[in-house]
């Protein structure tokens, strides 16, 4: 059984069909990319996956559980965490605090524990902070733990977003255009970083515009255009797929 299985997913916004009968599956340990021109419905798909919008039709099955139309909290608890197209860090909080918020569902103590700073409180805070530090260390942000998120360089902010998502306890990450706005060096670092994540056992679903990134790190690629799935396959198949070329570059003799 696949880790994530999206079956015949459809989403209408009033009259507009943003996603039309899309089926996608992701296996454990894969990096799967979704590409497509602007407005193809990629981000809509992510928003449906993470419970931002209700779905119009279709099923989303994650680890054998139906998750469509569940609240974002429930979906995070089943093990899906995401990053955002425009970086959405908690800017005026410390790097480590950003990660701790990601971990907050795994911290358990009562209000009374907090007020009296009981042993339970101290243990829970210590364990969580240690876990957050370990995550930061594993992705090379440990020396910035005390910084405010807004003061990190752009590339590292992207990484921090991923760290925050990892802290929710998930092994399935969905990344919304992680390379957007990066310079070539940052992009290169990011690619290696994502490959490392795969090596550590994370499964990754990715929206990306940067073809260099997509072609280099994806195991499989889905192509969306006007809400429809127009092609799917291995990177080299997609690169030469006539429909994909048409969607991106236009049809021959299209100009009138």
């Amino acid at each position, binding site marked *: 059984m696949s880790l994530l299985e999206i079956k015949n997913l459809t989403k209408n916004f009033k009259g507009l069909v943003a996603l039309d009968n899309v089926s996608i599956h992701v296996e454990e340990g894969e990096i799967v990319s979704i590409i497509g021109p602007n407005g193809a419905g990629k981000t809509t798909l992510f928003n449906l996956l*993470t419970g*931002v919008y209700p779905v119009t039709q279709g099923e989303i099955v994650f680890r054998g559980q139906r998750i469509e139309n569940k609240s*974002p*909290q429930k*979906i*995070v*608890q089943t093990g899906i*965490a*995401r990053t*955002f197209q425009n970086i*959405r*860090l*908690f*800017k*005026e*909080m*410390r790097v*480590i*605090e950003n990660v*701790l*918020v*990601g971990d*907050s*569902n795994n*911290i358990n*103590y009562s*209000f009374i524990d*907090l*007020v009296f*700073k009981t042993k339970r*409180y*101290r243990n*829970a*805070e*210590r364990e*969580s*902070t*240690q876990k957050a*530090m370990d995550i930061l*260390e594993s992705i090379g942000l*440990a*020396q*910035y*733990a*005390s*910084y*405010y998120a807004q*003061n990190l360089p752009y590339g590292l902010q992207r990484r921090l977003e991923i760290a*925050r*998502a990892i802290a*929710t306890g998930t092994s399935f990450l969905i990344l919304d255009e992680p390379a957007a706005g990066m310079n070539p060096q940052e992009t290169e670092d990011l690619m290696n970083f994502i490959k490392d994540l795969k090596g550590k056992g994370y499964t990754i679903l990715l929206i990306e515009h940067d073809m260099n990134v997509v072609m280099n790190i994806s195991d499989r690629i889905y192509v969306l255009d006007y809400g429809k799935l127009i092609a799917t396959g291995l990177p080299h198949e997609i690169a030469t797929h006539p429909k994909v070329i048409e969607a991106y570059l236009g049809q021959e003799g299209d100009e009138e």
Partner: protein
Amino acid sequence: MKKSNTIYVKLKEFYWKNEKHFISALIAILVSLYFLNLNQYFYRVLTMICLYSILALSLNIVLGYTGRLSLGHAAFYSIGAYVSAIMQVRYNIDFFIALILGVIIAGFFGFLLGLTTMRLSGSYLAITTIGFLEVIRMVLLSWESVTNGAFGIQNIPRPKFFGYELTTANGGIYLLALVALIASVYFSAALNDSKLGRNLRAIKNDDFATTMMGVNTNRYKVIAFTISGAMAGLAGTIFASMNRYIDPNTFNFDTSMLIVCICILGGMGSIKGQLLGALLLVSFPEILRSFALYRFVVYGLILLVMMRFRPQGLLGSLSTRPYKFPRGVKVKEEGIGGEPL
């Protein structure tokens, strides 16, 4: 320029290292004021500074941490005062039990307001909280059988602590307010460093992203209002016992605005800022009593200048202090954080 800068940095580091001593010294000074037998007027001003500090700390949880503006905090203040006063005058309940009831009931109203406004934000939220304040005021005015209407409640008994009567004149009320303030400061600081405080601040930074991290933001918004209401209620119960007379007009929109001004002037999110703000804005009218006419002009001017040149408030800027890791966390790299800016 650079040199003075390093001295400033060194002073700050010195303070961070010895913060506990500084705080103990400050508390010692404040407590010693009680033994100095100052005059009644002075104690009254000091008590008001303490009470407004508590109110500002209470608003700070909603406005400073969670980023949600409430213009109705005087309502919680009045609920605390009325509950405590009614319990004591009508039912002869001991002050300290009345205090706890006042805090609980004010907290409950905070819960209700939080529940009804959890989906609102910005100016919609602010307007709703003003409405809440007016509703509470109207109920206090009209529910004569309980609140005695516009006449207010008189002859609120003086609190007794093991037989010792606490009054404004002997400084007992001041001491009581000080203890409440210290508890509020401790609580605000504990909250800030905990999961609860972090999630509240995350909501202020980015509500949507917080939701997507699996945090039930609506629940946290309600919790923030509940705690905040309870704290403001605490200030109210002490106020009732100090003033010994309350009526619905003691707690109006101006009171709410003063709390908001303290919070903004002191610096949203900063605990020290709330104390400084309350000290300045409560003592200011007293100092300028001889220019009573121009008081509000100066007042407005200060806020105007603040907004132009230091919108984050006096002490509201992000702390450059290295993050305080809980004891026992292994941090491998040297000099973690350094200068966070």
